C-alpha cells in the first residue's frame, strides 16, 4: 500500500479539480468471478462464446424494463455538471471516472445498436460521429474495469439537471456482464454465501448463537445486567435485521451492543433470525432484480416464521436503501406487521423516538473527551429517508449523536447531507484487489475530515453503514489517522445510555 499516491489534502471549500490523467486507472479491476461463483446465481460460468449478441440482447431487455435506463441513455446533453462530482474522479484524475464519461462507455454501445442514427452510421463505420461504438472485447474490458470503479453512490445524480443517475447505468452494465459470464467475484461469491448459509460472512447459525452468547457475557461484565441477544425467539415484538459485520467486526459489534442496550432499556422484546442474519443485499450492486428479491425474501419468511410485529434494520447503508425504498416492492405487502409502525423501521428511528419521548436516558459523560463528526452514508443520504419528514435521514442520526456526546461538529457542507462523499468502498468495491482505488476514492472525505480535525479538534467520525465502517478502518491509517477513529452511532449510544435505575 505504501506506493499508492494520495492526493494532497487542502481546504474542502476550495477543492482543486484535478487535471485529466487519461488511463490513470485503466488497469484497476476486480477479480473476474469463476464458475463456482456465477453458476449458483444462474449466470454462465465463464464468458460465453456469443457474448456480444447475448449482451446486446440483455441490454435491450433492460431498456424495456427500466425507465431510468431508457430515459438516461437518451437525454444526457454532455453539459459536464457531473464531471467534477465523483470521488473516484477527484481522487484519481482518470477522465473515465467522470460520471458522464463512465455512462458513455455504456451509452456508446446503446447508440450503436438501439438508435437509428447509430445503426445507420455505425453500419458504414461512421458511428463515431454520433458517439456510437461497436461492442468489442476491448469495450467489454473497459466496462469491467470502469463499472467497477463506480460505488453507485448517486452523488452525480444530485447535480445532474435531468437527474441522470450513473448508479442505474453501472447496475445495468454489471447485470449484462453477469448474464454473459463476466461476473465480479467479490459480489457473486458473497451472494452465493447468502443463499447457502444466510449471510455475507458465511457465518452458520450455531456459530452465530455462540457468538451472541459471548457478547451477552461481555455486556454482563460491563453493566452487571442481563442484557439479552435473543436468536430465533418466537413471538418477539421486533425482528432485528442487521449486517453480519455487526456480529464480528469492529467497530460494528460495538454498535450491535448498543442496539441490545436500547432494546433492553426500552423493555421491547426482540430477536435475530438465523434465517435472515444479513441485512446487506449485494444483488443491488449487480443490478439484478430477481437476485435482490430472492435475498430480500428471507426477511419476509423469517418475520412470518417468528411471528414478529415489527422489522427493524441495523446500521447499514445500501441495506437501508433496499429496506426503505425497495422492501415493500420486493416482498410486500407487509400487512402481517403492526401497522402502527413504519415497515421496515431503522434502528435510529427507534432510538430517536425513545430519546424524544424520554424512554431512554443518556449521559454525555460516557463519551467524555470525544469530539464527533458524522459521515452521511450515500445510500442513506441520497436513496432513502428516516422519519416522517423530508431530510430526516440527516437530522435523526445527528440528533442521536448530539444527545450522546459532549461536542459535535459537521464537516464542510459540500461534503455532507445529499452532497456527502462516498467512503470509497461502496457499491461492491470493498475488496482488497481494489485497494488503490479505495484509498484514492476516500480522498475527498479524508480532506473534509482532516479539515475539521485540525480546526475543531474532531477525534471521531461516526458512520451508519457497515461498508463505510470497514472501509474507513482500512484507509484511515493511510491518511494519518487512527483506525479506531471511526465509530458506530450506536456505539456512542451504548457508551452514554443509563441502564438499570431508570425511575
Amino acid at each position, binding site marked *: 500500500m505504501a506506493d499508492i499516491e494520495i492526493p494532497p489534502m487542502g481546504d474542502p471549500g476550495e477543492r482543486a479539480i484535478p487535471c485529466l490523467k487519461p488511463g490513470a486507472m485503466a488497469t484497476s479491476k476486480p477479480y473476474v468471478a469463476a464458475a463456482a461463483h456465477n453458476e449458483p446465481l444462474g449466470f454462465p460460468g465463464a464468458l460465453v462464446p456469443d457474448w456480444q449478441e447475448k449482451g446486446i440482447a440483455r441490454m435491450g431487455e433492460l431498456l424495456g424494463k427500466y425507465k*431510468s435506463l431508457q430515459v438516461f441513455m437518451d437525454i444526457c446533453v454532455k453539459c459536464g455538471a457531473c464531471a467534477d462530482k465523483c470521488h473516484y474522479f477527484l481522487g484519481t484524475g482518470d477522465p473515465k471516472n467522470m460520471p458522464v464519461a463512465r455512462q458513455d462507455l455504456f451509452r456508446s454501445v446503446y447508440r450503436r445498436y438501439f438508435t437509428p442514427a447509430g445503426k445507420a452510421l455505425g453500419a458504414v463505420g461512421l458511428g463515431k460521429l454520433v458517439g456510437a461504438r461497436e461492442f468489442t472485447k476491448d469495450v467489454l474490458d473497459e466496462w469491467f474495469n470502469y463499472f467497477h470503479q463506480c460505488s453507485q453512490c448517486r452523488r452525480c445524480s444530485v447535480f445532474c439537471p435531468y*437527474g441522470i443517475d450513473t448508479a442505474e447505468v453501472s447496475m445495468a452494465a454489471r447485470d449484462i456482464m453477469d448474464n454473459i459470464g463476466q461476473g465480479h467475484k467479490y459480489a457473486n461469491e458473497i451472494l452465493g454465501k447468502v443463499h447457502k448459509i444466510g449471510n455475507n460472512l458465511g457465518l452458520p447459525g450455531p456459530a452465530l448463537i455462540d457468538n451472541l452468547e459471548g457478547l451477552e457475557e461481555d455486556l454482563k461484565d460491563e453493566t452487571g445486567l442481563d442484557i439479552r441477544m435473543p436468536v430465533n425467539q418466537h413471538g418477539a415484538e421486533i425482528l432485528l435485521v442487521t449486517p453480519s459485520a455487526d456480529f464480528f467486526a469492529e467497530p460494528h459489534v460495538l454498535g450491535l451492543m448498543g442496539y441490545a442496550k436500547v432494546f433492553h432499556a426500552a423493555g421491547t422484546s426482540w430477536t435475530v433470525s438465523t434465517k435472515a442474519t444479513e441485512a446487506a443485499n449485494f444483488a443491488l450492486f449487480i443490478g439484478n432484480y430477481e437476485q435482490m428479491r430472492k435475498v430480500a425474501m428471507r426477511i419476509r419468511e423469517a418475520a412470518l416464521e417468528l411471528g414478529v410485529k415489527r422489522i427493524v434494520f441495523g446500521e447499514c447503508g445500501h441495506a437501508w436503501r433496499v429496506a426503505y425504498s425497495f422492501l415493500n416492492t420486493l416482498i410486500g405487502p407487509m400487512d402481517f406487521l403492526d401497522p402502527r409502525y413504519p415497515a421496515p423501521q431503522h434502528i435510529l428511528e427507534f432510538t430517536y423516538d425513545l430519546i424524544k419521548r424520554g424512554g431512554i436516558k443518556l449521559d454525555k459523560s460516557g463519551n467524555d473527551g470525544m469530539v464527533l463528526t458524522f459521515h452521511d452514508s450515500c445510500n442513506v443520504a441520497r436513496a432513502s429517508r428516516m422519519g416522517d419528514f423530508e431530510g430526516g435521514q440527516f437530522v435523526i442520526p445527528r440528533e442521536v449523536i448530539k444527545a450522546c456526546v459532549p461536542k459535535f461538529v459537521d464537516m464542510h457542507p459540500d461534503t455532507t447531507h445529499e452532497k456527502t462523499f462516498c467512503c470509497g468502498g461502496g457499491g461492491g468495491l470493498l475488496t482488497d484487489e481494489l485497494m488503490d482505488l479505495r484509498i484514492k476514492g476516500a480522498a475527498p472525505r479524508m480532506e473534509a475530515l482532516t479539515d475539521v480535525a485540525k480546526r475543531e479538534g474532531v477525534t471521531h467520525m461516526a458512520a451508519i453503514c457497515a461498508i463505510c465502517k470497514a472501509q474507513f478502518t482500512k484507509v484511515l491509517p493511510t491518511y494519518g489517522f487512527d483506525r479506531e477513529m471511526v465509530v458506530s452511532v450506536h456505539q456512542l449510544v451504548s457508551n452514554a445510555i443509563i441502564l438499570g435505575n431508570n425511575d
Partner: protein
Amino acid sequence: MTTFFAVLYYAAFAVLVVGVGLKIAQYARVPAPLKIPTTPAPLTRSGAALRVGREVALFESLFKANKPLWIFAMVFHLGLALVLIRHLRYFQDPVWLPVALLQPFGIYGGMAMIAGLAALLVRRIIVQRIAYISGPSDYAMLVLLLAIGFSGMMMKMVAHTDIIAVKAFFTGLMVFELRPLPADPILGLHLLLVAVLMLVFPFSKLLHAPGIFFSPTRNQADDPRERRHLAPWAADLERERT
C-alpha cells in the same frame, strides 16, 4: 424554392412530431420497477411534480452543480424561449396578444440566445474536462443553433427579408396552400437549418426536453413505505415464483 421548402417543412414537421411522439410513448410505456427518487425528495406526488417543474423552469440541480454553466444555460434557454414565442406570429392571424406584447423583446431574446450558445461553445472547447466528453455531434448541435441564431438576426439587423411573404408562406402551408417564398439566400439558409434541427430532434440529445419529465429520480415521490410500487413485469415475476 417555394416547393422545395414546402416539401422540406412538411417532412421535417412529420419527423419531429412522429419521432418525438414515439419517444414520449416509449418513455411513458417502459415501467420504473423500483422507487429511486434522489433524496431528499418530496413526500407527495404533487411535491414531486413541483420538483420537476423547478428543474424545467429554474434548472435547480444545475444551479447546485455549477454556477457559470447555470448562467450560460439560462441565458440560452430563456433567449430561445423568447425567440420561439416571438416566431409564433408567423403562424397565426390574428396574432395572440401575449405574442404581440413580447414582440419588442424578441430581439434581446435572439442576442441572449447567441451569447449563451457562444459561451457554451467556448466552454466546451477550453475546459479540459468538457472537451474530453464532447463528441462531433455535441459541437455540431451548438454550431447549428448558433447558425440559426445568426441567420435570423441577420434578417432582423442587416438584410431584411419580405417577412409578410414568409408569413404568407407558412400560414399557407398550414392550410395546404402554396404561397411564394421570397428568394432570399439568408432566409433560405435560416429555414434550411431550422428544418435540419427539426429533423435531428428525435434522434439526438435534444430529447432532454421531453425526457426530463420522465426521469424517475426527479418525478417520483418519496413514499415507498406508504405505497407499494410494483411494475407489471415484476408482478408477473412474483406470480411465477410463488
